[in-house]
């Protein structure tokens, strides 16, 4: 986070560049790392995350795959079984549904069913999230499917330095990791940061980040909604309330301690995420906190999520179904004033 604070020297970089750097650095460091995906080589990826990678590491290590998400994940699994570390790009995270079985039944369970003989170092990453007018199939946050499928770690960064640092950790993790990249943050100027190089950039999986300290209410979130929560916290400050914003960064494993510690202070909980409400990760955090931190809660915990709908295309409809700064602010106020 250093780069956020000192702001002394050199060039700031965006979220996309951060991920790009992490992947390129890891491929250079680890000769057994392979990258696979649709259009990642010749084109350099739909969003350019892998731009230049094939020229540098060759078409055998940076593979332009047929449009077969199942085979992409499945062959990656075989390569990992045979000693490789594989980065798999989903062109949009929405298409992961087409490779679903290979993820939840083949890849996620490999270490479990072999009693530890085989582990699968694989990162499945891709652009995710709404607010960009992508409609039903280019806006999903479908992480809850995988949170309910044991054996997968799940990561979702909200800043460039976290994106880089968590990506390095994910690529070095011996387990399969799903990495949700927020495409609306890819090139967002306002959040650019200076980035550390190599090991100094590392951000470990499983540690939350306190994005803003506060005392009256804890807003727990990740991804794009971190920025909405920070804005909501500004609004709350105007009303005289101090909100703590926790960016969990890793969903599985979840850093429960940091949230509990915050609740000990604020005694109020609002969880925010973009996925549909029912069985989403916001509900999971809420459930864990009410079982584990019940005594600290002075008001009913609340969640602000997508409505239980797909993400519609046209702007007013999209904003209607997704969490907004207004909805978060309002819910936090209700929770504080309970």
């Amino acid at each position, binding site marked *: 986070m250093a780069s956020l604070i000192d702001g002394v020297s050199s060039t700031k970089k965006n979220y996309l560049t951060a991920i790009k750097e992490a992947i390129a650095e890891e491929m250079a460091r680890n000769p057994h790392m392979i990258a696979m995906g*649709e*259009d990642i*080589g*010749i*084109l*350099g990826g*739909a969003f350019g995350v892998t731009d230049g990678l094939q020229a540098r590491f060759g078409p055998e290590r940076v593979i*332009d*795959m*047929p*449009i*077969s998400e*199942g*085979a992409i994940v499945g062959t990656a699994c075989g390569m990992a079984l045979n000693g490789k570390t594989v980065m798999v790009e989903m062109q*949009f995270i*929405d*298409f992961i*549904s*087409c490779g679903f079985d290979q993820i939840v039944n083949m890849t996620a369970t490999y270490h479990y069913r072999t009693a530890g003989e085989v582990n699968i170092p694989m990162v499945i990453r891709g652009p995710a999230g709404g607010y960009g*007018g*992508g*409609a*039903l*199939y*280019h806006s999903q946050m479908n992480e809850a499917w995988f949170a309910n499928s044991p054996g997968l770690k799940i990561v979702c960064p909200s800043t460039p330095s976290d994106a880089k640092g968590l990506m390095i950790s994910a690529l070095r993790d011996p387990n399969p990791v799903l990495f949700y990249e927020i495409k609306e943050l890819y090139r967002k100027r306002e959040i650019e940061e200076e980035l550390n190089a190599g090991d100094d950039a590392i951000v470990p999986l499983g540690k939350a980040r306190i994005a803003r300290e506060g005392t009256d209410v804890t807003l727990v979130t990740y991804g794009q909604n971190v920025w909405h929560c920070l804005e909501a916290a500004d609004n709350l400050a105007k009303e005289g309330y101090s909100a703590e914003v926790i960016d969990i960064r890793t969903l599985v494993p979840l850093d429960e301690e940091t949230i509990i510690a915050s609740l000990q202070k604020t005694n109020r909980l609002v969880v925010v995420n973009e996925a549909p409400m029912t069985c989403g990760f916001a509900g999971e955090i809420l459930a864990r906190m009410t079982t584990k931190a019940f005594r600290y809660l002075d008001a009913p915990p609340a969640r602000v999520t997508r*409505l*239980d*709908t*797909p993400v*519609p*295309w*046209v702007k*007013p*409809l*999209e*904003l*209607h*179904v997704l969490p907004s700064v207004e909805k978060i602010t309002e819910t936090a106020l209700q929770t504080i004033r309970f």
Partner: protein
Amino acid sequence: MATKTNKNSNEQSRPRDLLSPQQMREMLTQLYLARYFDVRLIKEKKRGRLRGTLYSSHNQEAILVGSLFGLKGTDWISPIHRDMPAFFLKDMNAGWRNPDRIGMTIEEVCAQVWGKAGSPGRARDNWSHIGSKSKRIIHSTSMLAGTIPAAAGVVYADRLDGGDAVVLTYNGEGSTAQGIFHEAINFAAVHKLPVITIIENNQWAYGTPTHLEYSLEDFARRADGYGIPGLIADGQDVLDVYDKVMMAVEHARAGNGPSIVECKTFRAYGHGDHDDDRAAKYRPKDEVEEGRSRDPIAVMKQQLVALGHMTKEEAGQHLAENKGAGEVTDIDFPEEVVAYLNEGVQFAIKSPLPEAEEGGMWVFKEVE
């Protein structure tokens, strides 16, 4: 019939032999219409009026016109991202403005592109993701090849009900790598369902060339593995597409099951309009030139003139062919084409946005 005289006596009879000169000229007009739709949208987009991505069908229009021309209104189609003109070209021969036509009006299609409430889906999903049960157009998702099983199911149901509908499903060559493509074709083959899969083989799947997508010379040979016919059509030639698709349609309608029709063509621009600049880099220039050298409009004009169905003067009246989207103007198109599109665009612009609250509606159908 006029066409008879033009038939080479050594040739077998072809479906096109039954087309009248008027019908063939209508084919050319429909090519203009498809092309104009595309270039018009590019212009509208450049003017900032549209959101989302335009997947241009420029240079591939003969596939849409030729495949749809001989269909019955009661047949079904299942278009995907690059097939937007199919929505209004369907059953066009019943009369562009015939209210009983079983195809979409230009107003409906434009309202969809503009994201307005006048869209048949009230603009809940984007661009090509519309459809209409009453117009017999299946609504696609983004997931490539994902609509083919639905197409098979639709005609299975139709056959059970005593219907004789066929379904045309459209698919890029790259999307054939999807597992669901295989599952659906296999099922259709087992049940001899009237499912015709048009492969628009435009040599590229986004930034990936065909040799990285499949390992065949002619994709149509994939059909052999399912024990079904695999036909190859010149995707620049409306009449050839028409012939091959109609052969598949007749085969299907007679109860003999599915076919694959590979139409060889070339993607004129980037994958989508956002990709135009990059595509200019990742595709070799001479490949692009060669691929675009046989504009379907020009090919059709040559044939009409050769057949004596059109004079050279008539053919030279509108010159949309061989022009990029940036160069072409309204005078390069027949007046009725421009007028038709204008009506669609005007409707779309005037159509209101859907209400924000609609975002929360229609997740479930209410139980009566």
